[in-house]
């Protein structure tokens, strides 16, 4: 009987030892508690970059898409022969330096889309503070480039945010297609049979929804999730009411309601 007991014990030790060893052999990553960033004065790249790295691989959730090649461009390795993100960020948009480009990429991810990718990235300002976003910008600059983020960048954003809101400028666009493009709607919604299926297609929308439903969907997109798009719930910004004038909004609503 003791022989049987020892054999059973041996099997137990081997199995448990195997699983424990495997789990200890793979990369050991902790999820550190994000430090409260105080970047208001005297901030240096030495402080910003590690903070940004922690956010990049942690709370920011950036690695879920960046680094895989198929969902989003690689950032820490070469992409399309253009080098790492720190090397290429200054050449992306004419007249926009690296820092501005990266900040825009995080706060308005659909403003500029890299060739071959669709606009699936959520607006980082919805989950990260401005300090955290600047820390990520600094970290990304550090991937092959020079860190130019300074305390004044952070302070200027904070002071802008604290200042009384300027009168809204909605632009002069009145053509519905122009409005859809300008507001990055086509980054997620297909039209004329093409485009990414992140949100419901605009084709035939008028036969599925009333004008009132379309208007509500634009102003309060998270109130109801379109059938079959559950996995993207919460992705559509709820800011179009502030981005468009009432007239522009009605133009878009009538345009979509007319697509039967």
């Amino acid at each position: 009987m003791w022989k049987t007991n020892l054999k059973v014990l041996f099997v137990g030790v081997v199995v448990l030892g195997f699983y424990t060893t495997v789990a200890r052999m793979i990369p050991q990553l902790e999820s550190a508690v994000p430090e409260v960033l105080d970047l208001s004065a005297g901030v240096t790249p030495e402080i910003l970059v590690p903070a940004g790295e922690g956010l990049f691989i942690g709370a920011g959730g950036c690695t879920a898409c960046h680094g895989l090649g198929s969902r989003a461009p690689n950032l820490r390795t070469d992409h399309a022969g253009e080098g790492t993100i720190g090397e290429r960020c200054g050449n992306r948009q004419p007249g926009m330096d690296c820092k501005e480009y990266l900040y825009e990429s995080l706060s308005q991810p659909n403003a500029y889309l890299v060739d071959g990718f669709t606009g699936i990235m959520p607006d980082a300002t919805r989950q990260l503070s401005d300090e955290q976003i600047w820390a990520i910008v600094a970290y990304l600059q550090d991937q092959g480039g020079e860190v130019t983020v300074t305390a004044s960048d952070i302070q200027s954003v904070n002071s802008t945010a604290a200042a009384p809101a300027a009168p809204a400028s909605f632009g002069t666009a009145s053509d519905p297609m122009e409005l859809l493009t300008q507001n990055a709607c086509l980054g997620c919604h297909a039209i004329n049979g093409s485009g990414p299926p992140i949100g419901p297609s605009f084709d035939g929308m008028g036969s599925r929804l009333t004008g009132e439903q379309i208007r509500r969907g634009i102003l309060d997109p998270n109130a109801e999730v379109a059938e079959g798009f559950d996995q993207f719930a919460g992705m559509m910004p709820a800011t179009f009411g502030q981005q468009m004038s009432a007239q522009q909004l009605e133009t878009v609503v009538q345009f979509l309601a007319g697509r039967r």
Partner: protein
Amino acid sequence: MIDALGLLQGAADAARQYGDFPGIGGRGAVWITAQIHLMFAAFVLGVPMFAVITELIGIVGKDSRYDKLSKEFTRLLVFAYSATALWGVVLLFFLSTLYPAFWGHMAEIFHLSMWIYAGLFFIESFTLYLYYYGWDRWNLGRAKWGHWGLGLLLNVWGTIVMFIANGWLTYMMSPPEGTTVQGLPEGVGLWNALANATWMPINIHRLIANAVFGGAIVAAYAAYRFLAAKTDEERAHYDWMGYVGTFIAISTFIVLPFAGYYLGREIYEYNQQMGITMMGGFMSWLWIVQAILIGVLFLSANYYLWTGMGRIPGADRFMPYTKWMLLILVICWIVWGTPNTMIASRDEFAAMGGSRHPFLGVLGLMSGKNTAVNIMILTTFLSFLMYRRANKIPTVPWAKTGTLVQGAMFGLSSAAVLIIGVWGYFVPTIVRINMSVYQVFAVLACIIGVTVIDLMLVRGADSRGEIRWGAMPERSQYAIFVLAITFTWLMGLMGFARSGIRQHWHVWEVIRDTSDQAVTPALGYAANMITACVVVFLGLVAFIFWLGGLAERSSKSIGAPLMRQTQPVARTE
């Protein structure tokens, strides 16, 4: 003076946010206690499901073996119940002394459900005692059905108890919108806090997982008794019991991934960030470990079935296929274990020449992994079918056609899984994700279709010979131990995943963990904790089994003299 008292009170309040536990800290103490309590709870919820089903089979089929089996499980429950309650009480003390502020928040919101929980625990315990101790008294006719009804009630109480506790833990993951440290927002009540976004997915997942776990532990018990058996009769009984336990564990396990998919989807829907942390963030490597464990489960289950076919007359005609099935399982296992969404340093990326391995990286995509796991499920189902058909000669006139249709179903299903899998490499991510659902449908349709045909096909079939229960090589029983240990470890791992995705929040984005143990540890540390929990749990289960054996021997030794006394009387009659 009043100000000073206020300051002292403030300091005392701050100091009592967290308590300390020697050696492993408060988190370690709560982790181990909660995990072991959960393992026992899963056992005492899973085994009654098992017991009530086997008792029903015994009543309907008039087969006393099933009744005996059911009673044997229930005897283990009586001891396991005490262990569950004891660990639950320790957990309660640890939570209230080591995390008093957090516990205060939970009690404030959930106190009514806690009282109901305690009341139900009493009712459940007494139902269990009635069910077990009334077994022999209510063993015939209507009384037997009444007894079975008690078993059913036991399951109902247990399920409600589990649902309440699930409400508490899922609240920590997905509290209602607007919840603050002070409590629930205006207009949101206890029911909303309990029935939160991840409540039902966890309920379903745990119900299935409990059946899996109960089956695996019962099979391990049978395996040990098989190895320790002194007579052929005993060996035959425990061989059969081990088979029934393993069958239930594996057949319910096959549907578990679908419940997991539902849970994952709800997590994403509640908070995308939490979902990303789970699948693509610092926990991404956890899924590789999970793949390794599930691969071991599939291999062990198939090995057990193939070995078991040695005791079935006529099974030798299927044996040549097993080596190819093994090859398929191993290849699929390797594909499933290929990392994809991983975090690596810049140097590691540079060494690989990109974010993926140049040759193997392609296997790490979900298309490859989904295909692999579906093929593994189909292969395991084929093993079950071979096992089931081994000693049967169908007599229905359409037997050949039926078998051909079954073969075609396997072929079509496998082809659909492979084609969709390969196609997935050429379409955008969102299309690929939706396509995986069709792979699942193809597999489920095959399993259901083939099973229905098989049930009709073997009705009234001739036998090539009875299964030689007990004529099982000893090594097969060790496969059952591997299954039980792996299921237990997997439970600990998934517990870490579910709890760990909250990261530094006691209650997601409501109560922050400000203790010095707020860091969510790496897998190596978690593995140590999980192994410690499994060792303690299995050690205690072994002790309970030993106690069960003692009770059995005591009842036999009390019964023996009585039988000796009554025998002469019987003769004179």
